[in-house]
């Protein structure tokens, strides 16, 4: 018997699903991808392009994972309903490397839609400044505004460039900053605050993870997709279909199936059906993959212990402001790191209701073809534990408190914000957990140690791969897409050797 399936459409209530989302599924594929975050999508596309038969299952009704958006109706007026609102969850932004990644693993059109953000601003009690977020501009600021010697700044960038991923990750970000800019909390804030919002990094995380991500951004600044997240995901979907990927949404995978004695993957259980595959790539959280989808009983005791020690990364809250169509927004900036905390501490970014948030401003230029919409999305780092235990009235009250607190913060930069805002809505770590199925609603995967667990899965169970947000570096737009391609290459190698083994009876099967 199939269990009843529901839309995971709204935390206000789940609507029953009409029809069977996996009615057209076949009994066997070369590859099954579990989840359609950017890592899962990219892995599916690369493997399908290489000639493999790929099926992708997504539990939500949209593809994209946290590369997503939602719409809300406009207010009703005397002349009918006003123009609706559209909110991008994570569009701003990513490093320029995404252009090359999209050109190689997607299409020239997708790569061509990537544009640099025009404005990045910091506003806090220590400094208030505009930057294009490049090495040249940061060097200028550190010398002219922060009064550092240029040799000291060059020394810092040289250290970042020389750091090697294969060195033992002993030094923390805090160590790195104290070594180069001792006692300069304002400098530490300039260097880390934006990255903390981008990937949940804190001062205690390994310096190498920071060096990789920060250096990527410093190359040419912060970029975004013109056309919006909806256009991007539609374009990716079309490309996947063109390469023959079979896409199933509203289709949560219940189990990843394992042949116990060998051990290797045999497929997945989805919608009560067994779908066989030689390779399964999980784009779910790495802990969910091991503990829930596969089951710890299929792994070595040491590996289970290592997995249990992996820390989930920070979660997020977001506050969405849809502006009245009649008023829109004046130019403020694209990305504003806003804080009233007198000094910087990365852990304090997660406090409720907190002193710090980043505002992403969305102007009509994001979607030149669409109606002229203006929206502001505030993102805050958060703790799941602060939200999880609340009953519904307390939860709603706390969301209202966060909305008010964030609107007050916005008023410092847009004094008539209250009159311009038509729609306000709050997402919490509970919201993210609901829509993505991530444990603790984490928005940034795992801390550094999750990467090793993710990469070692195929040693434990042949044919089992993970291509989700892990280790801080394999996270965010660029990290996720590149990790999808890296894992696709490994899966492709395995599939290729299976074909060779089948053609040559003297070769031992790699499985």
């Amino acid at each position: 018997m199939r269990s009843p399936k529901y839309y995971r459409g709204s935390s206000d209530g789940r609507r029953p699903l009409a029809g069977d989302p996996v009615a057209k599924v076949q009994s066997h594929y070369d590859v099954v991808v579990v989840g359609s975050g950017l890592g899962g999508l990219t892995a599916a596309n690369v493997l399908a392009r290489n000639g493999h038969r790929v099926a992708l299952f997504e539990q939500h009704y949209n593809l994209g994972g946290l590369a997503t958006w939602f719409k809300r109706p406009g207010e009703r007026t005397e002349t009918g309903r006003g123009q609706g609102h559209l909110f991008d969850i994570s569009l701003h932004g990513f490093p320029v490397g995404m252009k090359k990644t999209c050109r190689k693993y997607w299409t020239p059109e997708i790569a061509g839609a990537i544009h640099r953000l025009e404005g990045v601003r910091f506003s806090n009690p220590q400094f208030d400044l505009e930057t294009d977020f490049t090495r040249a501009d940061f060097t200028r600021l550190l010398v002219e505004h922060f009064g550092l010697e240029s040799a000291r700044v060059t020394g810092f960038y040289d250290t970042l460039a020389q750091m090697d991923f294969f060195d033992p990750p002993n030094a923390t970000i805090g160590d790195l900053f104290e070594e180069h800019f001792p006692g300069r909390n304002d400098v530490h804030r300039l260097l880390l605050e934006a990255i903390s919002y981008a990937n949940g990094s804190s001062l205690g995380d390994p310096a190498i993870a920071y060096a990789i991500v920060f250096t990527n951004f410093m190359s040419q600044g912060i970029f975004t997709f013109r056309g919006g997240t909806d256009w991007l995901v539609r374009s990716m979907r079309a490309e996947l279909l063109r390469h023959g990927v079979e896409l199933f949404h509203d289709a949560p995978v219940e189990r990843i199936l394992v042949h116990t004695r060998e051990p290797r993957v045999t497929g997945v259980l989805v919608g009560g059906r067994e779908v066989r595959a030689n390779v399964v790539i999980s784009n779910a959280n790495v802990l969910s993959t091991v503990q829930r989808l596969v089951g710890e009983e299929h792994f070595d005791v040491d590996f289970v212990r290592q997995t249990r020690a992996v820390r989930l990364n920070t979660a997020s809250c977001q506050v969405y402001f849809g502006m009245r169509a009649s008023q829109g927004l004046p130019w403020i900036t694209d990305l504003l790191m806003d804080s009233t905390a007198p000094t910087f501490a990365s852990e304090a970014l997660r406090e409720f209701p907190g002193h710090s948030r980043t505002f992403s401003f969305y102007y009509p230029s994001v979607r030149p073809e669409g109606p002229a919409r203006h929206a502001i999305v505030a993102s805050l780092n958060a703790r799941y534990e602060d939200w999880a235990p609340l009953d519904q009235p307390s939860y709603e009250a706390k969301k209202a408190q966060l909305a008010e607190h964030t609107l007050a913060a916005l008023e410092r930069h847009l004094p008539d914000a209250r009159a311009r805002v038509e729609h306000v809505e709050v997402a919490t770590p509970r919201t993210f957990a609901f829509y993505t199925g991530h444990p603790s609603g984490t928005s940034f995967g795992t801390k550094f140690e999750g990467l090793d667990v993710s990469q070692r899965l195929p040693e434990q169970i042949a044919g089992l791969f993970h291509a989700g947000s892990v280790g801080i570096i394999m996270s965010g737009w660029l990290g996720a897409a590149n990790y999808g391609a890296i894992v696709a290459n490994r899966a492709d190698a395995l599939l290729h050797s299976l074909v060779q083994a089948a053609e040559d009876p003297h070769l031992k099967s790699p499985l």
Partner: protein
Amino acid sequence: MTRDEIAIAIKDIISQIAPDEDLGNLDPKVRLRDQIELDSMDFLDIVMELRKLYGVQVPEADYKELATLEGCANYLEAHLADKELHCASNA
């Protein structure tokens, strides 16, 4: 494939991955990434293309052998001896 043909095959693959680079004057003894903009993701793509076009498997531990054109010829010579050159751009 001869050693010269292997170099042609590699350059043809690179021309797909990095279409803006001039590959006319590459020194076979100098690291590719010191002459043109190639990162570790690009080397992964080279390996994936070699597998697709010529069926050759390069384990991750051996990626470093492909650092120069000469290194490519040394490493791939035995693997590709009985393979015909065909260009990725026409594949």
